[in-house]
């Protein structure tokens, strides 16, 4: 490792070839691995560098070998080893000459986060947090094998795959303003239900409005600190205010879409003679029949995920109305924003001085468009798109706003969370669920989980510090810190 940059000696892994080119920027030169078409870039602080895994660096380099990749293969500060792309991976591919790869999106298509504000203050729920959690737990089925009360018909599924959140709002699960305060208004255009298999439909039909398991959660929070009063005002957030966060994705439907199309694309790779360092990076030329079939199915699953989060939010609003004995106007549970963090999108970006259509793949990365961008909701156009960064269980979450540098250094992308540092099995060896629950309770944070082992697997100690991750993005000017949210109670899948 070359340490050309003048700064204190950094503790961390010895990774031959990795170069530090600026305070928070590490470069993987094209010579790192045969076939790299562009360099790799990983955005990390000294502290986060100490947790960097060599396999994650290799995965960034693998992505750099894919045809049509633009500028850099990137990883955000929450980067860790995944499969195909690393988690935290971002890459843009020329819409004509490049490829589309399910390995750059992952199985949980449009896993994402939504943040809901309120007219309540933290003190309004004193002594009520456990009751609220119990009711939320009942209203939103969670964990393995959980089934929804809703059974979507075949024609309803088609409408969901095509229109996303709009379908839910038309059915009475929410209001029009929910759509205007959501990434892409809760829909990716080009959803093609014909590309969604019977198996994916069968999995999707009984799961609308369910949370799933693993790192998915519902969280009751409060605004602990405001960093940017102007942006906070635009987002309608203020100190001490109660907020609510939903983290989940497209459930079995999305997993099956990815499985089905990876299967097809592993065969297409031979047809198009694409050399892959990792089979999980299976891909096809962006305009090929195979790639467009995947894109149509992926958009459908993404639209299912937005519908899912919309329905979950609706059921949570009902719980608040019942538990707080207040109506929706009094509660003011308005959607601040909803971001996808596992998705591929066709976007226009400046590349080498010219505008270009690219497929931006974000796998464990969030879109972060700056002020003035036409895809930022009108209400936030002057400050930038809200970027929602959930913390791990018991640690702060952050609201940021997209900044101009994101367009220059990361194709309009920021980090998506804290990023794991310990395996699930390691976590279960190290932590006991009951102890974690007790410790968190001592800090005033209640946790309710479908499966107790999830509490150990998701213990705060298995993640990097969300604060450290967010600070890197802030320093690089990708997204600016707006507010810090502290948890009061969590429902885990």
């Amino acid at each position, binding site marked *: 490792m070359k340490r050309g940059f003048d700064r204190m000696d950094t503790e961390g892994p010895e990774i031959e070839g990795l170069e530090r080119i600026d305070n928070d920027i590490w470069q993987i030169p094209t010579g790192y691995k045969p076939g790299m078409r562009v360099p790799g870039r990983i955005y990390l602080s000294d502290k986060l560098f100490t947790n960097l*895994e060599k396999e994650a660096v290799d995965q960034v380099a693998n992505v750099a070998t894919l045809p049509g990749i633009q500028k850099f293969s990137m990883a955000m500060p929450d980067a*860790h*080893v*995944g*499969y*195909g792309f690393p*988690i935290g991976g971002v890459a843009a591919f020329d819409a004509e000459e490049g490829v589309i790869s399910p390995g750059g999106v*992952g*199985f*949980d298509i449009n896993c994402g986060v939504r943040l809901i504000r309120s007219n309540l203050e933290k003190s309004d729920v004193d002594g009520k947090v456990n009751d609220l959690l119990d009711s939320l737990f009942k209203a939103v089925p969670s*964990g*393995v*094998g959980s089934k929804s009360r809703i059974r979507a018909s075949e024609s309803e599924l088609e409408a969901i795959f095509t229109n996303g959140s709009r379908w839910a709002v038309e059915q009475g699960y929410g209001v029009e303003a929910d759509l205007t305060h959501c990434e892409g208004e809760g829909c990716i255009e080009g959803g093609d239900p014909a590309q969604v298999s019977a*198996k994916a439909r*069968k*999995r999707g039909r009984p799961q609308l409005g369910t949370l*799933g*398991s*693993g790192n998915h959660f519902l969280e009751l929070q409060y605004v602990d600190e405001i960093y940017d009063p102007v942006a906070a005002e635009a987002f309608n957030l203020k100190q001490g205010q109660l907020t609510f966060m939903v983290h989940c994705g497209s459930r*079995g439907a999305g*997993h*099956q879409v*990815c*499985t089905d199309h*990876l*299967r097809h694309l*592993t*065969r297409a790779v031979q047809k198009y003679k694409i050399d892959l360092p*990792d*089979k*999980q990076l*299976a891909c096809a030329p962006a305009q090929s029949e195979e790639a467009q079939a995947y894109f149509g199915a992926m958009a459908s699953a993404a639209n299912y995920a937005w519908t899912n989060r919309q329905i979950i939010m609706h059921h949570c609003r009902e719980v608040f109305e019942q538990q707080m004995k207040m109506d929706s106007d009094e509660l003011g549970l308005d959607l601040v924003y909803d971001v996808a963090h596992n998705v591929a999108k066709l976007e226009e970006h400046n590349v080498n001085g010219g505008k270009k259509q690219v497929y931006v793949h974000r796998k464990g990365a969030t879109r972060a468009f700056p002020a003035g961008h036409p895809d930022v909701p009108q209400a936030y156009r002057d400050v930038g798109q809200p970027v929602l960064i959930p913390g791990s269980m018991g640690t702060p979450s952050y609201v940021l706003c997209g900044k101009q540098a994101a367009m220059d250094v990361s194709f309009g992308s920021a980090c998506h969370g804290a990023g*794991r*540092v*310990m*395996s*699930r*099995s*390691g976590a*279960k060896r190290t932590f006991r669920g009951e102890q974690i629950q007790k410790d968190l309770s001592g800090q005033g944070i209640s946790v309710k989980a479908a*499966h107790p*082992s999830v509490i150990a*697997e998701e213990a705060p100690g298995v993640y990097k510090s969300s604060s450290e991750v967010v600070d890197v993005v802030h320093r690089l000017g990708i997204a600016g810190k707006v507010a810090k949210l502290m948890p009061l109670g969590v429902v885990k899948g």
Partner: protein
Amino acid sequence: MKKYEYIEHTADARFKAFGKTAEEAFANAAQAMFNVMIDTSGINPQITEYIELQAPDLENLLVDWLSELLYLFEVNMVVFSSFEVFAIEKEGDEYLLSAKAEGEPLDLKKHIFDTEVKAVTYNDLGVQITSQGVTVRITVDT
């Protein structure tokens, strides 16, 4: 002979499964995958699913086999604990698999789930055949 072993992975679960034959290694891989989710030793097999698949190579066949089991687990709500792969044969350009999986109906009062396996990846995938036997290597998304 050891049936399978787990390998440390930050976000997901990775394991190797062994067998004297590909059939045995594939069956043991299925066992390893379900044991990521739940202790299968307490399951009393009552339901049998028969599975037939084809793929262009053994690696794809392995992913298809495990993916099919996850699909059946989720839609039929059956927790599988016992697997028998009858045959893996090459016919023309394709490999064919026939197998059965046995398990019991999902019962959330009885079945205590550990980590849910969401999907089977192609990452670091391998089917290694030597004179000693067959080793497969799999990473699943959890």
